[in-house]
């Protein structure tokens, strides 16, 4: 079998596997449901996520260790992940193939000519990793500063190295990086020493925005699946709505269309994961290369070159995605996947300049504090950003969230949506609860999202912990936020209309929503009694037939007890008289009577409310709900505590 066919089978297999994982991310125990499927396997294999998380949190969480395998294999094989495994790569390659069908060979070769803009992805990688790294730098520096035995020797060493490098003749690259790192280390230690607790280095994890696997998951979860399953209703009974998903879909569409013109557009110019693997592949043992440097220069090998790595000449190893499309077209069998360097020469490192890399790193380092300047993670927090159960405190949460949308996908009530800019630029596409969408609020006994989160931005919860049972009784139930009654919109509060749907649906026991009974005189409800026959009381003014027969209305004569109204026609009320009290309660001719409505007005008990939002979802005031949950009093941020 030809190697390209093997590659195609691999791509189709992994693409299908990706789709399958997307489909089975449905809560349930059947084989096509969540059960034990490793639905995050692609995200875990993705070393960009793992590395960024390592930088931002100083840990490699659980399955993210898979990224080590990808990195190690890349050191041997090159960018196999891009060419053989990545579902987004496969999609791009397919679109590129569609776009170049029927093209003449020279025109196809032209599309695959290396472009200077291919270095942009390395800039993006450097900037994204630098933005995530600041916290690790801070952590290490703080660790050093706490150890005087380490601090002074290290500072001295940094200074000595810088001076030595400046004085003595060394290779230019060595001197440059040595001086830069030494100076940065010395400056960092000095800063850390002078302002120990001031967080002058902040980390921002934004790799998820451009990471192809996160992008693919996000697009599949929030755009493709809702569109596909909307009319089918195979995976959820109700159609999925994700406010804020439109730009996610547009971006996907944009890059898909661009592939029609330039194959693997995203891989070549944007993908930071490809860039990371590209940097590593300079050390790869096996690589594409020519056996001899003599060829007819037919360039047929570049006709379908996916990485635009110019295998006909000096191959750009870092751009090669191992599509193997160059092997077979060569009539003289000059090109192979070999352990020897290419006879035509090769470029090992990406086409970047030192200045560009330093600029990108600096941009990333500055980006993180710049994002924090918004204060959305601290004092400027937005109360509408109610995070799913298990979410860490905001700063820790943001250091982990990849914006992959797995939590939104698995949520059985589809109440989790991607945030827009509510949580600041930093929080774009992170999960927040929107109780107007979805099929219900956040279910009381559900902890699904916390278990599918690949990075523990939502840490795994047990139902006991969520509900504050068993060993968690002391801590009490987890609160996502708190419900507030809007008394200007609530029917019983503002419109003398019985309702309390919120109270009935409150799933907490004892209920967090309770009611206070209230007797309210109805509008134009004061009348004089014209005549009385048994329980039928004829009034002076005409009535709307049936208006007061709902069981909620009462008739009271001056200062007396309210008597329930059983029915009314256009001129008279029929009272429902309690037996034995008939005499006293019936008004007499000429009496002034008042028609009352008995209302139950909802109140929220802040000690009980867990912010699940079922009340908000059910509230019949549909536009802007009359009871709304905000992040007030959420457990994850002690500072947001509302009551003692």
């Amino acid at each position, binding site marked *: 079998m030809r190697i390209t066919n093997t590659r195609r089978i691999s791509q189709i297999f992994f693409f299908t596997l990706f789709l399958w994982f997307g489909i089975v991310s449905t809560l349930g125990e059947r084989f096509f449901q969540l059960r034990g499927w490793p639905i995050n396997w692609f995200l875990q294999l993705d070393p960009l996520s793992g590395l960024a998380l390592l930088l931002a949190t100083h840990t490699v969480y659980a399955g993210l260790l898979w990224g*080590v395998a990808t990195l190690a294999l890349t*050191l*041997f094989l090159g960018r196999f992940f891009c060419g053989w495994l990545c579902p987004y790569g496969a999609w791009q390659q397919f679109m590129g193939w569609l776009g170049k069908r029927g093209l003449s060979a020279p025109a196809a070769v032209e599309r695959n000519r290396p472009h200077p803009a291919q270095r942009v992805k390395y800039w993006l990688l450097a900037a994204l990793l630098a933005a995530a790294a600041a916290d690790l730098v801070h952590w290490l520096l703080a660790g050093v500063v706490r150890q005087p035995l380490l601090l002074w020797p290290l500072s001295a060493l940094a200074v000595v190295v810088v001076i030595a490098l400046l004085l003595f003749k060394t290779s230019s690259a060595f001197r440059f990086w040595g001086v830069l790192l030494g100076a940065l280390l010395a400056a960092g230690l000095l800063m850390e020493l002078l302002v120990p607790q001031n967080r002058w280095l902040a980390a921002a994890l934004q790799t998820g925005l451009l990471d192809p696997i996160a992008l693919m998951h996000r697009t599949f979860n929030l755009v493709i699946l809702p569109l596909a399953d909307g009319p089918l209703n195979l995976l959820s009974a109700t159609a999925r709505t994700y406010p804020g998903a439109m730009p996610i879909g547009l971006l996907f569409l944009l890059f898909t269309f661009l592939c029609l013109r330039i194959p693997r557009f995203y891989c070549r110019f944007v993908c930071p994961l490809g860039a990371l693997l590209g940097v590593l592949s300079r*050390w*790869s043992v096996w690589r594409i290369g020519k056996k001899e440097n003599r060829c007819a220069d037919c360039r047929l090998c570049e006709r379908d070159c996916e990485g635009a790595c110019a295998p006909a000449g000096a191959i750009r190893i870092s751009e090669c995605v191992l599509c193997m499309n160059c092997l077979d077209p060569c009539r003289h069998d000059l090109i192979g996947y070999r352990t020897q*360097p290419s006879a035509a020469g090769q*470029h090992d490192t990406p086409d970047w300049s030192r200045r560009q890399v330093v600029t990108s790193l600096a941009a990333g380092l500055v980006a993180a504090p710049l994002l924090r300047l918004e204060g959305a993670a601290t004092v400027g927090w937005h109360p509408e950003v109610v995070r799913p159960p298990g979410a860490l405190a905001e700063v820790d949460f943001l250091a982990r969230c990849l914006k992959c949308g797995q939590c939104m996908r698995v949520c059985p009530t589809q109440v989790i949506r991607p945030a827009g800019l509510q949580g600041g630029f930093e929080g774009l596409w992170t999960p927040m609860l929107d109780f107007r969408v979805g099929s219900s609020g956040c279910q009381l006994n559900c902890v699904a999202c916390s278990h599918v989160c690949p990075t523990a931005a939502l840490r*795994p919860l047990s139902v006991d912990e969520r509900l504050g049972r068993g060993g968690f009784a002391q801590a009490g139930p987890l609160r996502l936020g708190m419900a507030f009654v809007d008394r200007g919109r609530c029917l019983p509060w503002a419109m003398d209309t019985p309702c309390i749907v919120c109270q009935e649906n409150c799933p907490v026991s004892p209920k967090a929503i309770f009611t206070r009974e209230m007797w309210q005189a109805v509008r134009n409800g004061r009348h004089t009694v014209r005549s009385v026959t048994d329980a039928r009381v004829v009034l002076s003014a005409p009535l709307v037939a049936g208006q007061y027969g709902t069981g909620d209305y009462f008739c009271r004569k001056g200062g007396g007890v309210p008597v329930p109204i059983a029915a009314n026609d256009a001129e008279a009320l029929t009272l429902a008289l309690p037996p034995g009290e008939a005499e006293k309660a019936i008004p007499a001719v000429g009496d002034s009577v008042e028609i009352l409505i008995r209302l139950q007005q909802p109140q929220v008990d802040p000690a009980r409310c867990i912010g699940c939002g079922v009340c908000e979802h059910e509230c019949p005031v549909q536009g802007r709900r009359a009871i709304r949950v905000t992040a007030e009093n959420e457990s994850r941020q002690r500072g947001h505590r509302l009551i003692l």
Partner: protein
Amino acid sequence: MNDLDPQPDRPERRWFLRRLLRAGLGGLGIGALGWAFWDRRGPQSGEESPSNDPLPDYSIPGQARRLAMVHGADRGASVTAALAALGGMERFIQTGDRVLLKVNAAFAAPPMIGATTHPEVVTRVARLCFEAGAHQVLVTDNPINDPASCFALTGIAAAAQAAGAQLLLPTDQRFENYSLPNGRLIRRWPLLRAPLRQVNKVIGLAPVKDHHRSGASMTLKNWYGLLGGRRNIFHQEIHTIIAELAMLIRPTLVILDGTASMMRNGPTGGSLDDLKPTQTLIAGTDPVAVDAAGAALLDKTVDDLPYLRMAERLGVGTVDYRSILVK
């Protein structure tokens, strides 16, 4: 660009073996790194253990509780007289001591409004400390309004400077999360700890003020200014928090300045009409007793201020100030 040409003098086999070795070592290195930082369980729920370095007791060991009450319109003279009645500042401050003056600088208002500790009191107490041999005197508070403005407008910054005391602003890094042993409200709460760490004596300087929620703001309520965070949440249980504050800080000395008392419209005041020339200054080692004595200046009794008896029940003082009054 790094062009790595194969070196013709070296056999290709060696080139391959070198690469293989490098890739192997690289793979192992990455694996080791990943393994070293591997976190199988993920972050756990954030229950921290309470801080294991509780605040020290700043009172002078072995001294009986005492309280002195002096009358007069001259604050400086009153301070000196009250201290003299207690046996002189030397009984509290020894040579080499580092002293923290916890003032009430809550509002960015001029001193004449009476909403903050009067600068004259600050200067006089600081000077007395230095005369008694203090090595260093610090002045701090975490006010409600902007800190820098508060210290400037209340005249406290200038007063501290005039006496050679050092003003510490409540910057972020001076706070630490603190749990009060046996406390219910002060749990993992930001406390203005850095100044407290720098000293071995603490003196509280407070004005006498009406306070709508708690009844009165005097020397005990003054410790509120050592809390950070969204501390106004504690207004839900104001008496409990003041009682816990009484447990939190066991001062060397407190001085309650009732030369003019804010009778109404507190704790901000804002008008001279809110003040009454009560011409009394109370100093003592027991803040509960000092505040109990001060209640009368606001025409209140101990029973109007529930936190006093709560603090007494917690064993940090007595409301029966007459029993410790120095005649």
